């Protein structure tokens, strides 16, 4: 089990590295899915099967699909990939990478300065999660509901194309906004 866990962790990390370095959006998203699946495996192994399923269903199955969906709607061609490669210059990412590395090392230092405690790995029943969701965290659930509603309304409003009033031949250039 431990070995499986570490394999999943390594897959997650490698695929995440691939995500942030790909020039092609679709490839990056595929790696993203792999990373999410690996994370789901980790969840499953440390006793959160419910979350593992949610991770696949919502993260991989809905959120990332949404990304792919948008990529398809934008219909980016080879040009975009070339552009992306151009943007990913070495000088552009070496300093941020250095910063992130320092931060990572510092955080790891802080984490390792506390004693190591093994996780129990005991499976936490979805029922328990549900119970604490609807008792202790009820207000959070309500707020999440409001957040989602706001998200729906906002996304709809933002993505809506304004209706064109005049015929497309009559409209002035650049007046579509």
């Amino acid at each position, binding site marked *: 089990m431990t070995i499986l866990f570490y394999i999943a962790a390594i897959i997650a990390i490698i695929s995440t590295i691939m995500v942030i370095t790909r020039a092609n959006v679709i490839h990056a998203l595929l790696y993203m899915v792999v990373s999410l699946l690996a994370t789901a495996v980790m969840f499953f192994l440390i006793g959160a099967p419910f979350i593992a399923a949610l991770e696949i269903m919502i993260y991989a199955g809905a959120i990332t699909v949404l990304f792919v969906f948008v990529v398809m709607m934008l219909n980016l061609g080879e040009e975009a990939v070339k552009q992306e490669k151009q943007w990913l210059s070495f000088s552009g990412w070496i300093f*941020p990478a250095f*910063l*992130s590395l*320092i*931060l990572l090392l*510092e*955080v790891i*230092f*802080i984490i390792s300065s506390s004693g190591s405690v093994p996780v129990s790995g005991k499976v936490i029943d979805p029922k328990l999660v549900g119970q604490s969701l609807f008792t202790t965290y009820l207000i959070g659930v309500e707020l999440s509901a409001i957040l989602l509603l706001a998200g729906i309304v906002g996304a709809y409003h933002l993505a809506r194309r304004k209706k064109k009033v005049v015929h497309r031949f009559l409209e002035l250039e650049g007046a579509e906004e």
Partner: protein
Amino acid sequence: MYDFLWLVPTLPFLGFLILALFGKKLGKTLSAFVGVGSIGIAALITILIGIRFLSSPPEGDAFVQTLWTWIAVDRFNVNIALHLDALSLVFTFVITFVGFWIHLYSVEYMADDESFSRFFAYMNLFVGAMLLLVLGDNLLLLYLGWEGVGLCSYLLIGFWYKDSANGYAARKAFIVTRVGDAAMAIGLFLLFYSFGTLNIEQILTQAPQTWSVGNNLAVIATLLLLGGAVGKSAQLPLQVWLPDAMAGPTPTSALIHAATMVTAGVYLIARMHGIYELAPVSMLVVAIVGAATLLVAGFAGITQVDIKRVLAYSTISQIGYMFLALGVGAWSAAIFHFMIHAFFKALLFLGAGAIILAQHHEQNMFKMGGLAKALPVTFWTFLIGSGSLAALPLVTAGFYSKDAIIWFAWSGEGGNIYLWAAAVFGAFITAFYTFRMVFVTFFGQQKIDVSHFPKWTIHVPLIVLAFFALFGGFIELPGTMGHFTLFSDFMKSALPAIEETAHENVSLEYFSQILTAVLALVSIYLAYVLYLKKQQIVTNFTDTSFGKGLQQFFLSGLGFDWLYERLFIRPYVWIARTNKRDFIDLFYVFLPWMSRQFHYAFSYTQSGKVRRYILGIALGAVVSITIVVIL
């Protein structure tokens, strides 16, 4: 009856509100009814309260009516409360009673003015504020009234604001009195610091326990309060505003700049007598200020040509007498003179107003003349007022009140022969310039035809006030003439009485009285000779270069304005000019400049490039986490 006390200041305020809000719509008749009526009812209530006070004095000789809490912050508690004792009763009576007659007079005097209702609004506001001043039971309320009357004085001096000179006079009055008020405010802070309260009664009871006689704090506090009093009462060295204040309508001069407001300083010192007694130095200063003022103003009065300015200088001089009385500890004598002065000086101003009205608003006496026949009522009442001012012996009220002061200036506990001499000499000058004015105005050739014959609204106030100017003095007779002490007995409940020892040296008192009386008569004769019979003497004298210079010097009020201009105004203007760029402001200009620079610097970082922002977050995180790690 006492419970109606709150109506006394409220009615004028109500009148003010009505006139200020609906003045234009009311029309002149209704405005006059509101303006005069509110004061009339207040005066009636005051008289009824006064009768009640005389017949059955309230417990502790003072009645306090607490209306509501004004401010309550921690230890700082101030109520809107009215305090009625003998002292404030006398002031309230004078304010409402004299005020009523002046209001009535104003109806005719201001009849042709387009801002009729505005005038009455200001006057009502003034009366209300003045009543608040004298009735307030704490110093803050007193200060509110104090500033209120200052405001009204400013508004009324500049009443005819279309002439810029009037506006200048108003500003001068406002700014000069502000100097004194600032000192007074500091004095109030000092008193609050020392006693933790601004309630007058509490201060007066606590003061002897907290301060020993001659305590430095007491001296400083009293001197600061004196500063306020000096400013408001136009005493040396802040007397310069009052002659210019004559720019206002004459009823204003009568009410504010003769009868009531300018005596607020007298009231303040009398009210705070408890702490003045703890500071003998301050008492001496008060006496010296009074003596010096009465002389300076007297000299200035001799040469004035404007009838109102003569009266203005005489007012300064008479208030100097009151200060002298306060300074020597003759409290009730000061208040007595205040009351009598209010009658005859209001009378004189109103008379002068009637003359001015009759002479096409001409104020130069030397262009008038021979008005005695044309305006008989005005002449006789004016003569009575002048006699009272000149302290004509035995028959006028002014004689009795001034005589008391002159005598106490010598025999009072703080008195000495120099003060007495100054007072006597002042009386001599007073009689001289007063009758100079009478002779020049009413006798000789009539130069301008009379344009306005006064009606009853002018005559009645003149006659009533003349009556009081003539007979008001008989309620208090000196020790040598029956020793009738109705007034000082009445005042005993509020102010410390003069010791009986003052009247021990009877022969000396006789000498003083006779000397004063003789001097007054002599100076009247002198005035008769110089200004009616042989005017040549005066013109000859003034033709010499020395005489001309002296005349100019006296005319300008002994050069105080000249001095102040050199001493304060020019340096101030110079500083203001050099400091045009305002180098203190540079610091404050620097602050926004700096914040603007920061703003530019930060706005440069607001590039709209999200990656930069994230880089910033990363750098910040590195710094903060590094601190955590290292610590």
